[in-house]
Structures are given as structure tokens and as C-alpha cells.
């Protein structure tokens, strides 16, 4: 049996080798199909991973609570415009919901940041110390501020990488330097490690963190003491996120005395939800690409079937001879199936090669991240085998059902 299969493969290769152009053109469909699958999936996977990396920069197991819009005289304000979220809300959440591991808050503004002769206009966030923890910020030098700094409304600042690059000379040490934010002097005590782009596409490193109390009392000024721009909480386990989000809603609605039908005056977003939205987009894209690739594989398969039918007709007499000397239907079937498989598998392998090459070129030329997973390659290979089997079956069966006498007489 092994000898039979082996010799049949050799025969198939020889037959295809005799008609190289024909075999090549037939394989082209499979090559393009498989190549497209590999290239597209690697680009898709690359994009997906890039998004996942961005999502990870939010922190771990984070839930964000934003104040909702405020409606004044029927005119909706921007989201976050209402003063409906306070430090007291955050503290209450921390007290009432035990699965929350950290609770932090922030208030945001955009300010002029000055260091000597250089200045920069950027976002300044007044944050609680736990906010830095929740967001998983690490430090390239110096460290974070403490609860004492918070309580004493200390004038200390943490600088993001982008801000450092814009207000310090290259090589100048920011930690220990005195900068001014809206003319208030601050001592730089830490430089944040870069995080890159956020999911929304903004530069997360363009930021200055100062203690919340300092921001509220000495820099931003506020209408209502204790109103915050956002509350960030985190849970120990990812599975708890949805549960925690629901509990937060209940607590918040109770605190804000919202009755049955009244809409929430806050918005809750979990990291998982944001991730899902992003993944949903890339999945849609992947499905589209898979459809295109499938069509091309289908066309390739039809090409194989077509050329095999031609081959069966051309070699009718040979089939007759083989049958006369004792080939069973099964032998003829296998012979032509192996020919179809050889076409599709060789085509598939070339396609994989092209696909990998295309993905690499995309990374090199366009700078898009691509990931070639062994799964993708395996699936593409299996697909080409299936295409060969499926489209080879009809011609092979046609050959196997020939009547030996008719086949021998065929001119």
C-alpha cells in the first residue's frame, strides 16, 4: 500500500512536470487564495495585538466612571460636563463594594507648562495616588507621590515622556527640577515610562500628574470642592469586572437618588467592554478577508477540477490499460485524487511562502505589525488539502467509473 501511494505520488509529479505551464496556471488560484489568507490574517492578527497592547496600557481590570452630560434648557452639554461625580462618590464605592481593589479619581485640564525658557501646552491631570497604581504607570526615573503629598496639597508633579521631551533639553535630568504650571511652581519627582497611543489614538505620554488636592485648590480652581472628572477603580480578577460594574451602578443610582425611569447621570465603561468593541472591529475585518480568500480558493479549486477533467479525458486510454492489467476503481480514484492533491498542496505551500513574504513586506514597507502564527499556516495548509480532495473527487470518480473496454478503445 505504501509502495502504491509513493509510486502514485511520483507518477503524479511526473505527469504534472510534463505540463509545467498548465500545472502552474492551475495552481495559481490556490497560490493566490492561500497567500491572501496568510497575508491578510497576519495583518489582522498584528492589528489585533497592537490594539490589545493599547488596551493593556489602560491598566489591569479597570472600570471607568465618567459623569454624564448635563442638559441646560434642553441643550445637551458635552459628556463629562456635569458636576455629578465627586470624591465622596468614589469613597462610597470603595466602602460599599469589597471586590474593588483600588479606587482613584482625577480631574483634568489643559495648562501651560513652563521650564525656564521652554514651555508646552498640555493636559494636566489632578489625580489621587491610587490612580497612578490603577493605570499601571511605572517610572523611568523618580517615583510617585504619596498620600501625605495628597493631604498636604504638595506642589509635586509627575511628567509624561512627551512633556519631558518638550520642556527639557536632551540629557537634562527632570527629577528635582522646578517647573511652573499656570505660574505655580512644582517640583518634578518622577518621570513616567512611556505608554504610547491610547485606544482612542491620543498620546498618553503627553500628560502631567499632580496631586488631586493641589489641582483643585491651587491650580485649576473649582466650583464645587470634591467634583471629579472621572473615577477609576480596579478589581483583583477580570471575571469580577461585570459584577463590579453593576454594583457600582446600583450604588451610584442610590447615592444620586435616581428614580426608576430616570437615566443614569454617569457612564460606566470596563476595560473588557472597550476591548470587545475593538476586537469586534478587527473580527469583522478578518471575516471579510476570509470570505475573499475563500472565493479565491473556490476559484482555484474549480481550476483544479477543470484541469483534472481534461487530464482524465486525455489519458482515457492509459486508464483503460491500467484497468486491463488489474487496477481496481479504488486505484484509479486514488491516482487522480493524488494528482489533485499534489496540485493543491504544492500550490498551497507556494501560497504559504508568498503569504509570509507579503506579510513581511507589509511590515517592512508600510510598518504595520504582522503576526504569522503557526495556526494560520496550518489552517491554510489544511484548506488547500481539503480543496484538492473536494474538487479532485469528481474527476477522479469519473475516471474510476470508466468501462475498461471503452477506455481502451478511446482514441
Amino acid at each position, binding site marked *: 500500500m505504501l509502495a502504491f501511494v509513493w509510486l502514485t505520488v511520483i507518477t503524479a509529479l511526473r505527469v504534472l512536470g510534463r505540463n509545467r505551464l498548465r500545472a502552474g496556471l492551475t495552481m495559481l488560484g490556490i497560490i493566490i487564495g492561500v497567500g491572501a489568507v496568510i497575508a491578510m490574517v497576519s495583518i489582522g492578527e498584528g492589528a489585533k495585538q497592537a490594539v490589545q497592547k493599547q488596551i493593556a496600557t489602560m491598566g489591569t481590570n479597570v472600570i471607568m466612571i465618567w459623569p454624564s452630560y448635563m442638559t441646560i434648557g434642553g441643550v445637551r452639554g458635552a459628556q463629562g460636563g456635569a458636576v455629578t461625580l465627586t470624591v465622596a462618590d468614589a469613597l462610597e464605592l470603595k466602602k460599599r463594594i469589597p471586590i474593588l481593589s483600588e479606587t482613584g479619581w482625577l480631574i483634568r485640564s489643559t495648562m501651560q507648562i513652563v521650564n525656564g525658557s521652554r514651555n508646552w501646552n498640555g493636559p494636566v491631570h489632578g489625580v489621587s495616588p491610587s490612580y497612578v497604581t490603577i493605570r499601571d504607570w511605572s517610572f523611568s526615573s523618580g517615583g510617585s507621590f504619596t498620600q501625605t503629598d495628597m493631604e498636604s496639597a504638595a506642589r509635586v508633579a509627575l511628567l509624561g515622556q512627551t512633556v519631558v521631551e518638550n520642556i527639557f533639553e536632551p540629557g537634562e535630568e527632570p527629577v528635582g527640577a522646578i517647573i511652573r504650571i499656570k505660574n505655580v511652581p512644582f517640583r518634578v519627582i518622577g518621570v513616567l515610562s512611556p505608554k504610547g497611543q491610547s485606544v482612542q489614538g491620543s498620546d498618553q505620554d503627553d500628560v502631567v500628574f499632580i496631586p488631586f488636592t493641589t489641582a483643585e485648590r491651587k491650580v485649576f480652581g473649582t466650583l464645587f470642592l470634591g467634583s471629579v472628572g472621572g473615577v477609576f477603580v480596579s478589581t483583583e480578577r477580570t471575571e469580577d469586572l461585570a459584577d463590579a460594574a453593576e454594583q457600582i451602578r446600583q450604588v451610584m443610582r442610590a447615592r444620586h437618588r435616581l428614580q426608576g425611569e430616570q437615566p443614569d447621570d454617569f457612564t460606566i465603561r470596563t476595560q473588557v467592554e472597550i476591548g470587545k468593541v475593538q476586537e469586534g472591529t478587527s473580527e469583522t475585518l478578518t471575516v471579510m478577508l476570509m470570505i475573499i480568500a475563500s472565493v479565491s480558493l473556490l476559484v482555484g479549486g474549480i481550476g483544479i477540477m477543470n484541469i483534472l477533467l481534461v487530464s482524465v479525458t486525455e489519458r482515457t486510454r492509459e486508464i483503460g490499460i491500467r484497468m*486491463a*492489467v488489474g487496477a481496481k476503481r479504488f486505484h484509479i480514484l486514488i491516482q487522480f485524487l493524488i494528482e489533485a492533491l499534489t496540485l493543491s498542496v504544492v500550490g498551497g505551500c507556494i501560497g504559504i511562502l508568498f503569504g509570509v513574504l507579503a506579510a513581511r513586506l507589509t511590515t517592512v514597507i508600510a510598518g504595520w505589525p504582522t503576526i504569522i502564527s503557526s495556526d494560520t499556516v496550518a489552517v491554510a495548509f489544511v484548506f488547500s488539502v481539503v480543496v484538492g480532495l473536494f474538487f479532485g473527487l469528481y474527476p477522479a470518480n469519473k475516471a474510476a467509473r470508466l468501462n475498461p473496454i471503452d477506455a481502451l478503445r478511446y482514441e
Partner: protein
Amino acid sequence: MNPLIVGEDIWKVYRVGDVEVQALRGVSVTIEQGEFVAIMGSSGSGKSTLMNILGCLDQPTKGQYRLNGVEVGQLRPDQLAEIRNQQIGFVFQSFNLIPRTSALENAQLPLFYRGLSLKEQRTLASAALQRVGLKGREHHSPTQLSGGQQQRVAIARALVTSPSLLLADEPTGNLDTESSQDIMGILEGLNRDGITVILVTHEVDIAAYASREIVVKDGQILSDRATKGRSQVVGA
């Protein structure tokens, strides 16, 4: 010893469109092992149909055909293929070698379907080629061989399985006189070694090699007689 071939009242009826063609009309024939039989007849006489049935390429519409005691009429295509592979060797007028394939591989073909190891296939096929005088030409493809040599490859292919029956359908039809004599000499020799040979021909001088002559006409046996033959040993 049982007869190798027993055909009883064999009919073969074809349908060509609406027309019914009776290719064989009640042929009964018995052939003993070791015989050298020539089946003669003009074209359209039914001799080719008879040969196809005797060679298990086709089955009778009506009647019985027993080969080596096995009733062939009811077998499935794959069982027929197995019988052809085990017991019958074919030699055709147009050689019917597989093109662009070496003499050795052509001779190997029946063994390939028998499932022998590659080594056994090669050994037996080489021996068969040597027996028909083609030693040294194992790796020539059909187009590199003369007609006579191609027919010898075909004979090698037919005898490589040590069949009990060798069917030759106009084996010299495409050959010159000299090659024809060579081929007939080989067949004669094989018959002497005990292989039953059935020769289908319309040439009297070729039929003369056989020791028995069956004449077919209009689907029936017209005459069946022993001839002196050129063979020294008359079939048992």
C-alpha cells in the same frame, strides 16, 4: 484437470441507440490448460467481443463463463480487475504501453496493482523483460523502441504475473513480417512453457502458429478444429 475456460451459450447484446446488436449469439467453447488457440474471423464477426469476455474485460449478457472454475458472469468490476491481475495477461494490436514511461515501469504495472514491494516489482519485471530479449532496454520509453520491441514490452507486462491465460488481440497487426515472426516465436515459447495462449487474428499465417483454430462468424462459432500447428507440443 479441469478445463481452464468453459463458456456455455454465451450471448452478448449491445444497444446502440435504438438498435440492438447481437455481437455473440450462443457461443459455447471449452479450452484446456496449455492450449494454443487461434480465434479467427472477419471484422464484425464478434471475435473481439468474445476475447473481451474471455479476458474478463466484459461480461456476457446471457450464458455462463467459468474461468478456472470461477463463474465470471456475476462478478463486480473490482473482482474482475483482480482476476485480470492474477490470471490473465493481455497483448494488444496497438501495444497499449503507457507513454513516456520506461519499459521496466510498464512491465511492472500489473505487480504495482498487486501491491508487491517496489523491489519485487523491479526484480520480476526485469526478469520478464529479459525473457522477451529486452535486457538492457529497461529504461527506454516506448517512443525509443521499435514496434517489435514495444510489443515485447507488452508481452513482458502480460507474463510478469505468471498468468494462466495470455490473450493476444492481433498482436502482429501493426508489425512487419520479421517482427511478427519474432513475436509469434515468443508466444510459441511461452505456450511451450505451459501458458495457455489465445490468439485473435484474421491472418491465416499467424493463426497457423496455433494448434487449434476457432472460426467465428456473425456471433457464432463456425468451425472449431485442431490444426497441426507449428508447435512441437500439441495442447493437452
